[in-house]
């Protein structure tokens, strides 16, 4: 019965693991709901500020902000990489880094250097191994990230852009398509691209590009400075909360399949265990029968 006992212990340990994964699945499911609420709550602001900035790109401002001017030569690009703090969420981070590297290789071929800003512990770990030039890192954002927690890292990247050390800035995060699907995206933040206001659909018919300008209060420079910084912050914040919703969804799916796999494993092992038990009983009986015949 030695083999049977070993199998029993193994089944027991898999059952324990299954309990943990199914608990994690349920936790992730409830956190996902909260993360999704957070993501939805932020969407109106992100959309409206994108509309406003889109309008601004249509206008003919007296003052061209640095963020709105395409630079002729791109020597260095920056990436703000939004990842999760914890693992056990399937291929979420891995797919994101793969998408990032694909993009980075294209820039490398064109001779542009890269700087990275890592949001989330997993991105920091990744860059430690990959060896990219990490200029800012922030982890431990938790389930309800705040804009205040992100400002520092964003500022590092924006200052680099202001000083001309970066010529382009991207944000890399997972887009929440639905619970089953998360899509890694690389979106350009700076310079502001004209298609940014693409969802400013309500006044497409009376858009008159380049023929008008805003009245600014207090003055164009001060206003655009703070508005555009706010815009970048809101876009990064939105990316972080969306990635948070992705994380919980991916974890829920990963834990669900882990629970299912454990179930399958237990079924298989139980079959083996029963066979071993049966074999032991059969052997015992044949030994008794054989013994009785000998007497």
């Amino acid at each position: 019965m030695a083999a049977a006992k070993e199998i029993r212990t193994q089944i027991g340990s898999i059952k324990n693991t299954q309990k943990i994964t199914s608990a994690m699945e349920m936790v992730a499911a409830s956190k996902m709901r909260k993360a999704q609420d957070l993501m939805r709550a932020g969407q109106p602001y992100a959309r409206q500020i994108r509309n406003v900035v889109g309008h601004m790109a249509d206008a003919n401002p007296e003052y061209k902000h640095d963020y709105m001017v395409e630079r002729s030569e791109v020597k260095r690009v920056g990436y703000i990489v939004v990842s999760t703090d914890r693992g056990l969420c399937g291929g979420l981070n891995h797919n994101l880094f793969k998408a990032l590297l694909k993009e980075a290789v294209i820039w490398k071929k064109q001779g542009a250097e890269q700087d990275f800003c890592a949001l989330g512990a997993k991105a920091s770990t990744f860059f430690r191994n990959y060896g990219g030039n990490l200029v800012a890192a922030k982890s431990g954002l938790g389930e309800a990230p705040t804009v205040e927690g992100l400002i520092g890292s964003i500022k590092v990247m924006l200052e680099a852009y202001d000083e001309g050390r970066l010529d382009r800035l991207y944000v890399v995060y997972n887009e929440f398509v639905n619970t089953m699907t998360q899509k890694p995206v690389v979106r350009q933040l700076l310079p502001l691209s004209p298609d940014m206001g693409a969802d400013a659909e309500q006044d497409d018919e009376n858009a008159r590009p380049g023929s008008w300008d805003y009245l600014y209060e207090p003055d164009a420079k001060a206003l655009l400075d703070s508005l555009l910084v706010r815009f970048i912050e809101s876009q990064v914040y939105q990316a972080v909360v969306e990635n948070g919703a992705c994380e919980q969804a991916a974890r829920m799916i990963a834990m669900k399949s882990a629970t299912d796999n454990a179930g399958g494993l237990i079924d298989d092992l139980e079959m083996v265990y029963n066979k071993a038990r049966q074999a032991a009983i059969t052997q015992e009986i044949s030994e008794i029968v054989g013994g009785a015949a000998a007497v």
Partner: protein
Amino acid sequence: MANSFTCNIVSAEASIFSGTVEQVIASGIMGDLGILPGHAPLLTELKPGPVRVIQDGGKEENFYVSGGFMEVQPDVVTILADAASRASDLNEAAAEEARQQALKAFNEKSTELDYTRAAAELAEAVAQLRTIQQLRKKAGKG
């Protein structure tokens, strides 16, 4: 309708108001602004303070905004608020307490950083009180 336009008020956490309005009154950084339909395109920073919205049909709504931006287009006004709330949700006692606390911090002004923060807090508390008082005045009249 020619004498109305769309107004959207959003804060980072939620959409506060969206609808057709006849007039929007907000406190811009350089003074109070009344926006009527067909206003020239305008971008302004907002001071902490009340935003009054006169809806289609004359119904009036009050909001409190703790700073932000306002974009005016001839047919749409967008207010990007740092934090907005319906004025009726404001609590006068809490605002008064915040004002007292800010004043106290203001007088102590231990470090430069605290000083600027206290000044900002004070401005916000005063603006909240202003919103409440405006609301009350109107309620008294009506």
